[in-house]
């Protein structure tokens, strides 16, 4: 069998986009940026950044490096770097990340865990 030739066109800022008319019920994983304008239910597991745009609706647990939420998220978010809740977003769930930003106007309900080192001993 001939080796598969990769003729893929190079795309700047290669990433995945789930448009507003798309619904995914399942699991998304990957090692590139993901932009969600549509609906995702299930689980998201990324090594890069997740952008939930204002039309995006997520009912999923999220594990990623960075998250920027302008839309709606129901589920727990665990980020290895940063979680940013923009104004007008609506998030219900627990957030765990070293850096968490919540903008004025954002709606959030849940626990925040910045992994603050408590006094020595651990």
């Amino acid at each position, binding site marked *: 069998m001939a080796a598969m030739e990769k003729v893929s066109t190079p795309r700047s800022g290669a990433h995945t986009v789930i448009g507003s*008319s*798309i619904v995914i019920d399942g699991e998304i994983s990957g090692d590139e940026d993901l932009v969600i304008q549509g609906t995702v239910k299930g689980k998201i597991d990324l090594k890069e950044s997740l952008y939930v745009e204002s039309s995006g609706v997520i009912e999923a647990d999220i594990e990623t490096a960075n998250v920027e939420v302008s839309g709606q998220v129901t589920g727990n978010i665990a980020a290895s770097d940063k979680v940013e809740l923009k104004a007008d977003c609506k998030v219900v769930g627990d957030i765990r990340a070293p850096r968490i930003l919540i903008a004025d106007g954002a709606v959030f309900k849940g626990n925040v865990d910045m992994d603050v080192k408590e006094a020595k001993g651990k």
Partner: protein
Amino acid sequence: MAATSGIIGRGTVVRGNLSGSGDVVVEGRLEGTVALEDRLTVESGGKVIADVQLENLIVHGEMGGDVVAAERVVISSTAKVVGDIKAPRVVIEDGARFSGSIEMDVKLPEGI
């Protein structure tokens, strides 16, 4: 509707059900079921393992699963497809690898 409404990039894997309208391009991997009102394009390097139901399907990459298309299925010269296809119009280009059945809903002449 011609606007691309979804891209599954090279480094991304989607497992589950994908549904909606608009065109979807797969450069990465998609497993599960697909129900689209418009077009799914599997780029070369992309891999789809799913039963799909849609209007148009264009495969440049790899695909496994049954296809029901309302309009047209194109299996390009770089494609590798395993599965059954049901569509009014099916195109298989020279160089394509395909294994499965094709049903074009042909009305056979009387007496056959």
